[in-house]
């Protein structure tokens, strides 16, 4: 039997301590409707738990939603953990409220894209389809 094409798998994670996950849930549902397989972790996950979940779920993308301002420390840890696990090919993107001046640093740390509050689901879906690195 021939191999079937698999949908792109995305882990939507909420690292850190803020408990506001409306945006993350809207995104999760929106990406499902765009044909993605979305794994949602729930709120207040440690970076270690996010990395382990990304590995076990064999996702193509980890999307971190952060509203707490802790992005500068948490996001680079996710990237580093994925590298340590041999999963440097997993795309890490971020959403939420991230000040303009922090973007350069995050991009240098390996965050592929940052989607601010005005981003649409369609825009994010298009970006992911164009940028996932699949074997």
């Amino acid at each position: 039997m021939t191999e079937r094409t698999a949908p792109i798998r995305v882990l939507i994670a909420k690292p850190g301590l803020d408990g506001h996950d409306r945006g993350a849930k809207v995104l999760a549902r929106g990406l499902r409707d765009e044909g993605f397989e979305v794994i949602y972790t729930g709120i207040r996950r440690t970076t270690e738990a996010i990395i382990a979940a990304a590995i076990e779920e064999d996702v193509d993308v980890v999307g971190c939603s952060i509203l707490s301002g802790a992005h500068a420390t948490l996001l680079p840890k996710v990237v580093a953990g994925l590298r340590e696990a041999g999963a440097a090919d997993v795309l890490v993107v971020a959403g939420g409220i991230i000040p303009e001046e922090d973007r350069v640093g995050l991009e240098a740390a390996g965050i592929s894209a940052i989607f601010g509050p005005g981003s649409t689901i369609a825009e994010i879906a298009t970006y992911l389809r164009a940028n996932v690195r699949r074997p």
Partner: protein
Amino acid sequence: MSDAPSPRGAALRSARELAQAISSVERGGASADALIQEALAQLATATGPAARVIGVTGPPGAGKSTLVGALADRAREEGRRVAILAVDPSSAVSGGALLGDRVRVEERPDDDGRFMRSIATRGSGRSLSHAAAAASLLIEAAGFDLLFIETVGAGQADLGIVRLADLVLLVEGPEGGDEVQAMKAGLLESADLVVVNKGDRPGADRAVERLRSGLALGADAPEVLLTSATEGSGVTELLRALDAAALRRGRGGRVRRVAAHLAAAVEARAAERLRAAEADGRLEALARGITDGLRPLSGAVDELLQG
């Protein structure tokens, strides 16, 4: 990075190997077959008992994920290596899926004796993914001795999990199990064990009574237990009961899982052929020919299956 990986890194790398193998059997094809074959060869030389595969099913909202998480924690305390396979439906429209079972299960990232994977049904047309049986073999070959497969509570008509699992646990909420439901054929009929979860809620005791009296009418009625996964009550007793029931049934084993895999592969192939015949108009052409009396009905199905 050429440094030797840390112990944590090494554990993550072996989890990644299993995770990627599961993705491969979800896609199917020759490399998937090779991985399954390899797992079977490895298991053939393994000593010790076969892994125990427990299907967990029931209506949405009964607390299946939370209960499975609690059972997994308890089994880990006993030193067993535990895996969870959580199956959720794919959207028929977009092909996407929202897999949310991790929300209800405590993450334990430092514990390499547990593994959790969410899979979507991907057009299998039922509540179990075509890849579930193959994934269970890969998980067993990776050294896990207890596997919970949680399926969407499709209810009455969907028995795919019965074919695959050594044992089926039906989880009901405190409102569940009115007597007529209990007498209906379907999942309740094939459950080896029934549990009323959310036992801390009012009415749970009565649900147990309803289920017991309904089930008592049938021969070989399954036991009905009460748990509260959030409070942790009844979980140890449930794990004991599952182990005892598995020993009593004695129908476990790899042959069963390979048979389930073959059955799933046949269904997948038939579904693929049907989709192709619909897409290229052969189904309609055939139907038209039969409708107009130009060709016999007999043989039409065989023709479609041959593609």
